[in-house]
């Protein structure tokens, strides 16, 4: 009798979870399958997951892009913007975190407070004045508004600084003291002792920086007005422009392609991602 109850509980548990798993994945699988359907087929029996015939040409046609700009350009732009800003975050956030944990300077507490405060600030509040500022810098229609702030204080810096600070706090201070006794200055201490030890934190920062930058839509929407400068996120919007007849299957093909890097990183670095979210509350 007890065994029966246990088995029954197990069946309920797993069928509930499997049902939820199907609901969670269905939209993504649907996107993938629609990317292989013929354009006219997408909305006939829309729920159908297996296309009647596989139309691989959707990818080729979608890749051709708009006018003279192909998706090769959009992907190149995305990669350039993402790579530079990620490097910026890793560099600036690690040195700032180090300063806030392991050095002493005047008003340190004040600057730490600004880090915490900017974490709570709804970033959209600054859209207008930042736009005007970058307009004055003549940065409109360049990548600068997207890639320069990360080297100093970008929209996500505060989260990353805080994450690295927590990590540095876990490194025993005796290590610093021993290095200092051996004649190691603060700069060398950072480069040779701390930096190698915080690598796991930097990987986490890198992953989330890539995610957020790759999917960022508002920034490119504001600052980039020429299609040849568009990253993928913004280019997808062109498919549904009122001036063109939307080719759904091409759009789905490119949408699916835009998610490939994100999913790839997810499966390779899952451990870091789970850790980053669990311990720091980073939003996915």
């Amino acid at each position, binding site marked *: 009798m007890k065994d029966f109850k246990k088995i029954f509980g197990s069946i309920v548990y797993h069928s509930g979870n499997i049902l939820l798993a199907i609901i969670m994945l269905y939209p993504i699988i649907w996107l993938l399958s629609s990317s292989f359907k013929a354009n006219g087929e997408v*909305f006939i029996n829309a729920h159908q997951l297996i296309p009647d015939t596989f139309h691989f040409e959707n990818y080729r046609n979608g890749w051709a892009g708009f006018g003279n700009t192909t998706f090769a350009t959009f992907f190149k732009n995305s990669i350039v913007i993402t790579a530079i800003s990620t490097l910026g975050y890793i560099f600036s956030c690690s040195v700032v975190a180090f*300063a806030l944990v392991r050095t002493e300077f005047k008003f340190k507490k004040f600057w730490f407070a600004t880090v915490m405060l900017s974490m709570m600030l709804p970033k959209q509040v600054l859209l207008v*004045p930042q736009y005007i500022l970058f307009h004055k810098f003549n940065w409109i229609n360049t990548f600068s508004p997207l890639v320069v702030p990360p080297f100093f204080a970008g929209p996500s810096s505060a989260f990353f600084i805080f994450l690295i600070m927590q990590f540095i706090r876990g490194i025993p201070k005796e290590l610093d003291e021993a290095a200092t006794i051996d004649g190691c200055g603060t700069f060398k201490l950072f480069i040779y002792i701390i930096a190698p030890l915080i690598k796991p934190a930097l990987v986490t920062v890198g992953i989330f920086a890539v995610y957020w930058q790759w999917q960022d839509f508002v920034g490119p929407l504001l600052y980039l007005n020429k299609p040849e400068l568009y990253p993928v996120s913004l280019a997808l919007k062109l498919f549904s422009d009122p001036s063109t007849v939307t080719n759904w299957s091409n759009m789905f093909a490119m949408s699916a392609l835009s998610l490939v890097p994100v999913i790839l990183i997810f499966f390779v670095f899952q451990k870091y991602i789970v850790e980053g979210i669990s311990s720091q509350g980073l939003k996915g």
Partner: protein
Amino acid sequence: MKNTVKKINKFIDKHKLTGYIFASPWIIGFSIFFIIPILNLIYYSFTDFNLIADPSWVGLENYHHLLVDPKILKALKVTVSYVIFSVIPRLAFALFIAIKLNQKRKGIGIYRTIYYIPSILGGSVAVAVLWRMLFTRDGVINSLLGLIGIHSGISYIGNPKTALSTIILLAIWQFGSSMLIFLAGLKNISPTYYEAAAIDGAGRFSIFKNITLPLLSPVILFNIIMQIINGFMVFTQGYIITKGGPLNSTLFWVLYMYRRGFESYDMGYASAMALIMLLIVALISLFVFKTSSKWVFYEVKEN
């Protein structure tokens, strides 16, 4: 050459500048990209400014317009309902699933991964576009309903009664990151509490209410505050999925601000809107913090 380096080093040491040098990216960046814009924002909100001509001082005019603009009230209503109806169900659901996954059973790792994937993809334009297709007239939802004999010709995107709900559903679909945070929190609860409760013969609900919930409350508080702030920032979904419509039923605050600022070039008005939003978010966060002393339980750790 070597001498100057030495001199510089001495100067740095003498004035304790090393820390400043390391912190300088933040100090410079925060000043230029945060402080200056915020000060400018306050100034712009009192001006008429179209980006081409210089801003001209109009006093409180923007704020007066805000008070009588029917779209402002609409945007506030839409945004606040979005925040309430996405944050609370998402957190509740995330907590429920986290508790269910916090057991020793087979397959839990796989479920966790699957539930988390939408959170990773959810912010992307691709998913926003996809969401639109799920809920249009010929979309997947109606097609699925047709299978079980319900033939509805409604476009959920095009109906002012349901449009906001589709975007809220998109938010709830991304419960995975909150679930992971709760899972980590649950793992930190010492099993001795549960053992003691088991000895006392406590029921499942009583254990949840008297042990799990209080010990998890700091994590819940953190989540509520961050998600309220994030909720107020909703923009892309409204911009792509529903374009603010139909009948402004998804005209989120930031979307309306974007339209006034970057489509009508009314930077003064958009600035006033941004400041009001900052004020609202600050007040709500403060309110949640204040009430938290009543329901958040901090474990005293003995050292």
